[in-house]
Every structure is written in structure tokens, then in C-alpha cells.
């Protein structure tokens, strides 16, 4: 039998008839929604709906005791806006976020630059650098609680040893400005690893040729960094910045565990105030109102980010 005839006949005997109709598993149009549907549904149910509930709570008089859900208009908002507690919290939210992000921006760039070259032990160093981010937030914060302890602070001991201070040392968490500084320090400590790693990824995506060209062109260190490297890692740094901002705006864990909002509510932020009012205090409606102030903030951040992203062609 010729080759062709042979293959033709076995082709007919070989296979069972395949399912020939296009079904949902083939259809480009329907398979997508089918695969992504469950995730979307989940998100709508657990984020979308509660979000609208929060909106409604903020204009109601509901409490953790349950029961009432009456509409009270903007009373909750007007109640809180004038209180010093709220205004401090609002102010702090911005200060903590902006200051910590500024410090992180500086340090992460420095660290990413320092990590450019390979050297022995780099792997170990990277592991150590990542620790603050992998550790649970509350756990890391407790460690700092111990470090900042007014009596036993190892920080105070070291400063005393170095002769920089006398006497007992700083009350890191007891004085308003020191407490704020401590909180910012812990934020920076927590987020520096992630920001650095993201920047490192950005650095590694720059083709080596570009650095070589700049060297040939005679660019010194600072010019090279600001005019060649920085613009190229800008898109990805913006992503890191966005995540960092969102986290610092909305975090209550560090404050809850470090200062409980003290001393005397001077380190409260919107998120922690919402928690204390709503859950600890039982006034769900007011808590929701406070928390809702976060949302426009975040929306503005996201909008700003999307505009910049559009211009620098990220997505």
C-alpha cells in the first residue's frame, strides 16, 4: 500500500469522533466571563455590598447592639467633624502617610542602588531586609513596642552608652511628637523592604547597554542617576508608591499595637479612630462615618496614579 493510502486508512480507524460542536469551553466570548465570574461575584458580595452598607450606616444611627437602623441624615458627620479628636486624626492620617512615604522613597532608592552590585552574602542580606515585611504587622509592631519601652528600651541604652543622652532616656511612646515619630519609623520599617524589592525589579529591567552608553557619554554619578536611571524606574516606583500610600492611609494595626492612639488620642488616625468608635465604642454609625473619610482620599490617590500611569504608559 502506498504511504498515502496507508495513512489515510489508519486515519479513519484511529480516532473516535471528536466533540465537534463549539461549546462554552471553546467560545472565546463566553469562557472569559465564565472563568472570571466567581471571583467577581465574590468581590462584589464581600466588598461591594459591605461598602454600600457602610455608606448607609454612616447616615444611620445603628450600633453594635443591633436593632435600630434609622436614617439620620448627615448627623454623624456633623457630630464628628468639629471634634478635636477627629481633626487630629485627620491631620495625623496625612502627616503619617506623607512623611513615611517620603522617607521610604529616599531610603528605598538608596538601598536599591546599594544592592545593584553582586557580592558575597547578598542573598542573606536580602533575606534580612525582607523580614519586616513578611512578619505579621502586629508581631513586628510588638517588637518595636519592646524596643521603645520607656524603662527597658534597648535604644535608650545604646544612646546612653554612646554618651548621647543622660539619665533615663526618651519616652518614645509617651510624648506626642516622639510617639508620632515612632509610628512613622515603624511604618518605614515595615514598608521599606517591599519598596526596595520593587525598585530592584525596576532597576533590573533597564538594559545594561543604557548604563554603558551613559558611561561613555561621560555622565557622573548623580547625573547618571537623576537623568538616566530615575526616569526609567519611575513607572514602577509609582506603583510602589501607590501601594505604600494606600497602606499608610488605611492602617490601624501599628497604632493600635504601639500607642493605642495615645498619648491622649494624639496619635489617632482615621482608621484607628473608626475602630475605637465603632467596635470598641459600639457606635457603628459614627465609626462608619469616620472610616468613610478615607474613601475620597483613596479615590484621589488612585485617580492621580491613573493619570500619571497613563502618561508614563504603564497600562
Amino acid at each position, binding site marked *: 500500500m502506498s*504511504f498515502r493510502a496507508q495513512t489515510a486508512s489508519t*486515519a479513519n480507524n*484511529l*480516532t*473516535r469522533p*471528536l466533540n*465537534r460542536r*463549539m461549546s462554552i469551553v471553546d467560545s472565546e466570548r463566553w469562557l472569559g466571563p465564565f472563568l472570571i465570574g466567581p471571583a467577581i461575584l465574590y468581590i462584589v458580595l464581600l466588598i461591594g455590598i459591605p461598602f454600600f452598607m457602610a455608606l448607609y450606616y454612616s447616615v444611620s444611627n445603628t450600633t453594635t447592639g443591633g436593632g435600630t437602623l434609622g436614617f439620620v441624615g448627615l448627623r454623624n458627620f456633623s457630630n464628628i467633624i468639629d471634634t478635636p479628636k477627629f481633626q487630629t486624626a485627620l491631620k495625623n492620617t496625612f502627616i503619617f502617610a506623607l512623611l513615611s512615604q517620603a522617607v521610604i522613597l529616599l531610603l528605598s532608592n538608596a538601598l536599591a542602588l546599594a544592592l545593584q552590585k553582586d557580592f558575597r552574602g547578598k542573598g542573606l542580606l536580602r533575606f534580612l531586609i525582607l523580614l519586616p515585611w513578611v512578619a505579621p504587622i502586629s508581631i513586628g509592631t510588638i517588637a518595636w513596642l519592646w524596643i521603645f519601652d520607656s524603662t527597658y528600651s534597648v535604644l535608650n541604652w545604646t544612646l546612653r552608652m554612646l554618651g548621647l543622652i543622660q539619665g533615663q532616656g526618651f519616652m518614645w511612646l509617651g510624648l506626642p511628637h516622639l510617639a508620632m515619630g515612632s509610628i512613622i519609623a515603624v511604618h518605614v520599617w515595615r514598608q521599606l523592604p517591599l519598596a526596595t524589592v520593587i525598585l530592584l525589579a525596576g532597576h533590573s529591567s533597564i538594559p545594561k547597554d543604557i548604563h554603558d552608553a551613559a558611561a561613555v557619554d561621560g555622565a557622573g554619578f548623580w547625573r547618571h542617576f537623576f537623568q538616566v536611571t530615575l526616569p526609567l524606574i519611575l513607572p514602577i516606583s509609582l506603583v510602589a508608591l501607590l501601594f505604600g500610600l494606600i497602606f499608610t492611609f488605611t492602617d490601624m494595626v501599628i497604632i493600635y499595637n504601639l500607642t493605642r492612639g495615645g498619648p491622649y488620642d494624639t496619635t489617632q488616625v482615621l482608621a484607628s479612630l473608626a475602630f475605637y468608635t465603632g467596635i470598641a465604642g459600639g457606635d457603628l454609625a459614627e465609626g462608619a462615618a469616620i472610616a468613610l473619610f478615607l474613601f475620597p482620599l483613596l479615590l484621589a490617590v488612585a485617580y492621580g496614579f491613573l493619570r500619571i500611569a497613563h502618561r508614563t504608559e504603564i497600562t
Partner: protein
Amino acid sequence: MATVETRGVKKHYGAVVAVNGVDLLTRDGEFLVLLGPSGCGKTTLLRMIAGFETPTAGELLIGGERVNDLPPRARKIAMVFQSYALYPHMTVFKNIAFPLKAQRMDKASIPKKVEWAASLFGIGHLMERKPRELSGGERQRVALARALVREPAVFLLDEPLSNLDAQLRASARDELQQFQRRIGTTTIYVTHDQVEAMGLGDRIVVMQAGTVRQIGTPQEIYHEPADAFVARFVGSPPMNLLQHQNYILGFRPEHFLPRGTQNGKGKVSTFSFRVTRVEYLGADRLLYGLLNGAFADQKVIARLPSTVTVNIQPETNYDFTVEDKELKFFDASTELRISARPL
């Protein structure tokens, strides 16, 4: 035993027209090449035949059966991709066996079939390797074996040689053609390389901007181009095309020879040729220059085989001739081929 037919096939992506009405009918068992520059629609056409794109209009038939609504797996086709698309996490054996498993072939018969396909390409010794451990040529053979093992009605190949280095390409081309002759399955092959097309194709479909410019054997395409685009695209160096009022005159570099050196005895036309540059390529000489006279200052190229030993110096005028039967005429506005006219 199958032919592939497209009737009025079109593909639009919004306002962009990728394929603008293609009518094609392959002959059973032929090696058909879709040739054209990038963006001409040849790959889109191939993907529609395979089933990865849906035509905006028109019909696709494989073996006489309308396949527009059939998914790729039901069309009895096999495809070899530009990157070969071998499954990186499977051994060569599993790669080749994969289609058979997909078709629920009974487990006992699979190894025999795989061996058969592998032996056709001489890759039996590579069965336990993974794709990343193979050379480019070996990967091509595995891709072909995987395509063959399904005993499809039609082979579709999407520029499979373009990832090989130049040296390997020629021998791979040779293997490919021999293989197709033996198997005798209808094959549609996409490429932008006209040398490959000429070497491999039984017939060539020249495409540009979503339409078919010409379908023909390599001889027909080369010697009787249907329009100036085909004339320019096929042949290296490209055909000389000279503008003159309402027509375009064309002749190939190898037909443009010094007076007295033409092989044939037919009538010739003479041109005054001022050579500006000579390239010595060993087997040929390429002469670049400008014409004088009726087609003054238009660039032309002449290709002299090594058997023509006339001494040619740059910056000198020579009388060159072209046999009249090798002069091709094209309409100046439509670029379509027209009959001969006096110069």
C-alpha cells in the same frame, strides 16, 4: 485527502482590514505557499483556516466541509508554529504522544504511533529529552513529528524556518520538502521569504494588503508577474522597474546583459547604461547604475554571471540589451500587467 477552500473570506478588526476577500482552492496534496510582506494578511488567513480567528465574512471549507463553526480540534488539521510551541514541561515522547492522548487513543497503541512518527524524522534517540535540551533543527523535527502523528488532512505551517540560523535554513528547507513529498498531505505554508517560497511551493499565493495579487507556480510568478508588486517582491535583486509616461517597463537583472552576450537569438532592445558601482559576488557580478536616454536617470541593476567575462568599469557608459520577450509592461496607475508596446 483534502483540499482547503476559502470563499470571499474577510477579516476586519474594527476599522482595520486584515484580509479583504480571498478566494483560494488548494489542490489535493499540494504544497501551497502564502507569500507576502508583514501585514499582508497571510498569517491572519492561516489562523482563520486553523480556527483561531473567526472570519468577518466568507466561508472556509476543509475537505469540502464548511468549518467556520468548528473549533480547531475538530478540523483535522495540524499546525507547526513559528516558535514550534513544544510543550516545555514534557519530554519529546510526551510531546508527540499528546495529540494521541487528546484524541483518546487507547494507551497500548500510542507508543507504536509515536515511534513511527519519530522514525520518519530520525529523532528516535531524543525521546526522553526536554525541548530546552534540543537544538533548533531537532525542535523542528519534533514539531513536525507531533503534527504528523495525528495524520491530519491538512498541514499548516507558520514561518517555521525563520527562527533557524541561515546555514540551517537551507538543509531544513530540503528536509521539509522531501517530507511533504513523501507524505503527500495538503500543506499551506506561510512565509515572507521569497526564496523559501520559490524553493518549496508547488504554487505560490502572493498577498499584499489583505488581497491576493497572484496565484501561480514559481515559474509563472517569476516570469509572468500579474502586477508590479509581484514583480518587485519576487526575485533578488528585484526586477528593474522603469517609469515612462503611462506605463512601467520591467526586466530582470539577469536579462540585462552587455551587447553581444545574450544567449537567445530573439530580437533585443538596447539601453545606454552608465555603471556607477560594481559588486563582485563570486558567482555573479552585480552592476548598479543609471540609464541614459528615454529612461534617463532611473536606477537599474544588472546581474552578470561569471561566464560573462566582459570587463566593466565604473563611471563608464555601456550598451546593454534585453531580449524583447523578457520585457514586461505594467499600467502606470493600476500597476497591472499589460501587453507589450513599443518603447
